[in-house]
């Protein structure tokens, strides 16, 4: 039918053509929108772009087969900090020039996205060419990946620089929240909890920065709405709850370092609930709405809506001041009743397609040069995991102190460190919290 129609119309067309100039003139005025050249150009563009895309897609399927291409290592790490991102850019440049490895920092808003991805790959049977090579984790994400067998085991001891952390002496390098790492992840940095406050707010409120959990409650009662903590699904939120639980149960610390049980939970919860019940109504938004992400704490302090907050990276405070994200009157300090401290790690997935290159990258991250660079306040300021006694003098010199920023933590004062409770406590405390205060997503 169509064919006949077209035939018909083309014969008609021919008839018109032969019938003379008048008709031809009329037809020709319908000149095309695009000239044939333009159409050709456009088509080429489309084909070319499809080709480019297909090329990338196909290229990805045989990562290691194409030996002339440098191996690609995809490092999935939280991308919310300009300092961390900047440091990883430096690392990418270094491994490219030193080892000809292409390091791609996949910036995550939430680390569990990457955990989910590896799990989805495992579910779909992709066991040797996953899209996640390295992943920055600790605590529960590690526990989850370990439980589901998503990480390579016993690879860390192969790294030359791992011995510099002195793992025989420092058991924290091989235990992640009380959970043995079994060589599934390499230590990368150390952190402890610090508090920071707006000194001008304190002046106008006529208050002192609180030094203990009890003082914190009194502060919040006198200046309602000036403090909050993130929900326990956030890393910093659950850390605050652990800190409060430890500080309010000074006489029962030993139970926190064993796997949690109903009995031990029952003994530590009552003082915690009593404390939080009193604290919540005095908090920001009357405790009705609590922040989802720890980083929003810093924003609210910067905006002036909060006067007191806390962080797990002491160095990010002065560095945020130099980047204007926090005002100059911010001061950092450690609580007298203890600071929660832990180590963060890098895991290698079980289905990584470029394990050898990934190990080279991690070994570089553990080198004195990379660790010293990371510890610089202007770069990131994350504490090194290397044991200074294992280093040569020249290597130790790399870590020499810089001038102290007025907003930075005064490290000359001794701080009492509280080790992280056993990993099972995290879930137990969080579930109990949600049960009591409602699920806040």
């Amino acid at each position: 039918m169509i064919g006949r129609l077209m035939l018909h119309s083309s014969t008609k067309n021919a008839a018109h053509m032969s019938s003379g100039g008048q008709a031809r003139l009329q037809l020709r005025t319908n000149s095309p929108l695009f000239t044939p050249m333009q159409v050709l150009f456009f088509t080429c563009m489309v084909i070319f772009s499809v080709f480019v895309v297909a090329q990338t897609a196909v290229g990805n399927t045989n990562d290691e087969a194409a030996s002339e291409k440098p191996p690609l290592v995809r490092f999935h790490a939280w991308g919310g900090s300009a300092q961390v991102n900047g440091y990883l850019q430096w690392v990418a440049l270094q491994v490219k020039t030193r080892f000809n490895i292409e390091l791609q920092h996949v910036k995550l808003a939430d680390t569990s996205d990457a955990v989910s991805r590896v799990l989805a790959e495992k579910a779909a049977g992709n066991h040797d060419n996953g899209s996640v090579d390295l992943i920055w984790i600790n605590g529960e994400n590690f526990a989850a990946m370990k439980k589901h067998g998503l990480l390579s085991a016993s690879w860390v001891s192969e790294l030359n620089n791992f011995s510099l952390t002195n793992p025989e002496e420092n058991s924290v390098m091989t235990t992640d929240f009380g959970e043995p790492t079994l060589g599934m992840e390499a230590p990368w940095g150390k952190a402890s909890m610090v508090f920071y406050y707006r000194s001008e707010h304190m002046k106008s409120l006529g208050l002192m920065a609180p030094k203990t959990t009890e003082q914190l409650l009194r502060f919040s009662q006198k200046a309602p709405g000036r403090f909050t903590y993130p929900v326990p699904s956030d890393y910093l939120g659950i850390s605050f709850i652990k800190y409060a639980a430890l500080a309010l149960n000074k006489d029962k610390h030993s139970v926190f370092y064993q796997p949690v049980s109903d009995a031990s939970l029952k003994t530590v919860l009552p003082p915690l609930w009593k404390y939080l019940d009193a604290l919540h109504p005095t908090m920001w938004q009357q405790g009705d709405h609590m922040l989802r992400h720890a980083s929003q704490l810093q924003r609210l302090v910067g905006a002036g809506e909060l006067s007191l907050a806390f962080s797990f990276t002491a160095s990010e405070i002065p560095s945020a001041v130099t980047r204007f994200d926090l005002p100059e009157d911010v001061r950092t300090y450690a609580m007298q009743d203890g600071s929660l401290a832990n180590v963060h790690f890098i895991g290698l997935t079980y289905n990584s397609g470029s394990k050898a290159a990934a190990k080279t990258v991690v070994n570089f991250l553990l080198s004195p040069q990379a660790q010293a660079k990371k510890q610089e306040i202007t770069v990131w300021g994350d504490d090194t995991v290397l044991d200074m006694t294992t280093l040569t003098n020249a290597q130790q010199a790399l870590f020499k102190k810089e001038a102290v920023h007025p907003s930075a933590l005064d490290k000359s004062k001794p701080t009492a460190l509280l080790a992280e409770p056993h990993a099972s406590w995290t879930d137990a405390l969080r579930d109990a919290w949600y049960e009591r205060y409602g699920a806040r997503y």
Partner: protein
Amino acid sequence: MFAQFTRIMRWCLLLLLCIPVLAGLVGVIFPALGYFPAIGANSFSLDVFRTLFALDDIWHMVWLSLFTGVGSTLLAMAGAFLLLATFYQSSWLEKVQGLLSPFLVFPHAAAAIALLFVLSPSGIFARLMVLGGDDAPPAAGSSFFPYDEFGFSVLLALSLKELPFIILMALSVMSQPLIKKKLLGYVNVGASLGYSPTASFFKLVAPSIFTQIKLPILAVLVFATSNVEIPLILGSNNPSTLAVAIMHWFNHIDLSMRLLASGAAVLQVAVSGVALLLFFAVEHFLMYLGKQSLMKGRRHGADALVRGIGYGIVSLYVILISTVIYAVVMYSIAKHWPFPALLPEGVTFLHWGTALEALATPLVNSLLLGMLVSTSAMLLVLFTLESEQLKPAARHANSAFSISLFLPLLVPGVAFLYGLVWFQQLVLQNAVWFHTYIAHMVYVVPYVFLSMAVAYRKFDNRYAMVAQSLGKTPWQVFYRIKLPLMLNAILVAWALGLAISFSQYLPTLLASGGTIATITTEAVASVSGSSTRLTAVYVIIQGAMPLIGFVIAWYLPGVLMKNRGASIKEKNKRRAVLHGT
């Protein structure tokens, strides 16, 4: 030949939309029924739903989703029609359209953040409020705007965002020559019978526009009930809307929560369905009221009030847009900026430097993906629409077609995207660009289609008939008559497709596994970060990117048409010379 080709294209489009959505749905329905072998759940049962409905807050969450979704859509629609009633006969209409389009192309995440900049307790308005006061710290967050437990701030933000879209859709209907003529006739009859312009609008014009833009409005409604970004940034979390909870459960560290998430995703589909039913109920009620008012025949209907509201909405947008621009630009270049001050203490380009340094690759990715997606979506849609005219499908096939076309818009994204990722892992696991392309197409094609279909179906077919009767083939009619005449609409649709592709967060992140960084994924990651100033920079970049497409759409037709006019003249001249010899 051409007709056959267009029919093949139509099938391609259909498959492109249906396969990912259906595959995605299967990928959540199985876990919802308790089947998820990866974590050792191997048997089917309804336990997941039992757990889901046993949650304390579940009905509260469902209510919040319904309330914010239906409420914002109705509010946005009312606002849009009041605006149109005020301005439809005035030359201001174009200015209003120009004013609202920035909000249209602004990605949802960026819009929500921008509202935080101006409306939060330490925002610009709070600063203005205490102007001249002492240097006291800002009110300790007990304000109404962000995070209120009733969902009003989410509702408000959603309506602010959807109103321009509804206006744009209505205007694209009204500007079609045929409809324009018909509506003008209505209005003239109304005027000669003594109806005030406002009364004629609501009694005569609005009903015919509404039927034309009903499908886009339904898409807006579903989107509003299942949107993640806005309630995530502005909504309370005690509890949150259902969609936010779903995302939270899918991303939960405890991987067995995915079963619950899948169950909730299925529930979300039902919630969106209920929202549609509610909307139909309201629609019928309004139609009943409309008929009553037609019978009564009152010549005036609260004219002054309508105009007042119309001007009120416009001034609200003017104030909001200008303060947002001020706040965002200032933050992006501010040094320290203590609370009540209206000006920062100094200017720095540190954050622009940081952002631009990191943005080269994401920018190229965004552009490449956007251009590819939008252009191919445009071609598919054009051929599909053409096939509809060349050989209209049977009635059933046609309605099946429009339902599947709207499938991606009517099935909440949070419901099928996670399932889609699982499916994509089964086939071609490493073709990340391809998967991302598909995930984008699923969202871009329907909007491009919506935007084009209105123009296309109302195209004055007599041009085509005349051309055909002069012996042009279907291809020639399509290429030489329709394309040039609809160039404006085509480019606007293309720009819209580009903007939508740019703004995709969840599809990009999930389908590419994070390996394809785009401006939007970087921006959302920066929102989870701690720098307000860096976020401001990203908001500006995100807002400016879609404008590229629209600038092209506004600028190109003029240039092309001018050239075309010139080339015709040229040819005529040449012919004249030839004839002369």
